[in-house]
């Protein structure tokens, strides 16, 4: 079982970026930026360290490789363990968000 409590936001965003299908490195960077509303901009070195870690943890795996304009692109896809970890983390975040909403509604009914 993946330690969902220890999942950091960039890891969550990378796994989310791969949830709807395989993406290559720069594709993940772009998707993470969109998903985070521009708050998280992964540098390439950081991304590849994270990809290596997630691969070693068995959450993702390399998919296919292609050449575009002479540039090598390797795609990555979620493994079933990655999908389970993302699902668990999403549930945990939803539970937290729901709890926070409930409290806010009690305190400030007009804004929550």
């Amino acid at each position, binding site marked *: 079982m993946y330690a969902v409590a220890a999942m950091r936001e960039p890891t969550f965003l990378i796994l989310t970026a791969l949830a709807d299908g395989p993406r*290559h*490195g720069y594709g993940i960077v772009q998707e993470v930026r969109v998903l985070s509303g521009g708050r998280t901009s992964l*540098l390439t070195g950081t991304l590849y*360290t994270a990809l*290596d870690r997630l691969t070693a943890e068995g959450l993702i795996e390399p998919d296919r490789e292609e050449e575009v304009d002479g*540039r090598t*692109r*390797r795609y990555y896809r979620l493994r079933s363990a990655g999908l389970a970890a993302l699902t668990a983390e999403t549930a945990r975040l939803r539970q937290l968000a729901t709890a926070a909403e409930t409290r806010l509604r009690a305190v400030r009914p007009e804004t929550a």
Partner: protein
Amino acid sequence: MTGPLARRYRRLLFAYPRAYRRARGDELVGALLDAAAPGLRRPSAREAANLVRHGLRARLGRPASRTVVTWAVLAAVISGLFAAAFAARAGWQTARPLPRAAEARAMLAEILPEQEFADLEDAPALFIIYGSPLSLRSTRDLLLGDGGEYAQAGVAGSAPLPPMTDPAVIVDQARQNLRAHGWTVYRPIFHEVYGCAGPPCDPTTIPRSTTIVAGRGDTTFTLEVTPTDSYNPGRISGGFQRATPAAVYPLAVAGGLAGAVVAFLLFGWASRRTQGRHPARAVVKTLLGIALFLWWAPALLALPTMAWHTIDEPHPSWHPMWEWLGQPVFSLFFLLGCGAALLSLALAALPSRDREPLPAHT
């Protein structure tokens, strides 16, 4: 992928291990070029620093480990400190020989002209153990508990404290003459000549010796005046030592950096080699842990003690760097640690059971 920007990215990828570059280099450069703004000619400082940082992380292998970086830093720092200490010892070779006995006697006559100092002898070397320079014969003393006897040599003599003389008078005269002859004189240090033997004991009745230290150029001077008490006649001791030579500092910095880099690279190499199904994986880790303990423990014991001693008493010249690392008092620990580290590296060199020891996505 051969433009100037790609070439610059490839240069930065030298921070990554070679096998990683071979397996992933094209992919990384491709992603970097994809992410680069149009017209960009060179990587930004932030991007370059990020690649170097993560390249160094990749050198440690074990991408899922959350502790490997800590272990690598521990190994690199202590190795750098020991390398710096060895380089500092080499730097000490640039020190002038100690003053000869005749020269020391002449300097003592300037400081305390009315006292006749005896027992002045030429020093055999800058550092001695039990009165002799370090040699193979002193190995036993050095390793088996008497390493603390390896210390800076000095040229020293002593004279009886004249009867009915207040030690403070001698100290004041010495301070005055030292200043007159260009010495920088530090505040006096007082030590009780003996401790309380048991109650009743009034600490104010215990006689105190006074020590003053001074520095001039590459020479340091220590004078200790012990008052007469019920058991012993008063004495004046004065001695000269060499101050740390200027070459010690750059050599220690360069040696320390080189040692830390080499240790980091060796640690990374061993870590990558043993990350898969390696026959000696557990033994390599255990031996490394033993080596780090044997190196760090004396240093952690000695560092606060030396720091307190240096703050507590004035020092015209600080103690040599190796003493801050608990050496050579714990030289046996150091040597055993070296043995464990070398054995660990030798075992890491054994072939892995994996066909591909790196997480290369091929």
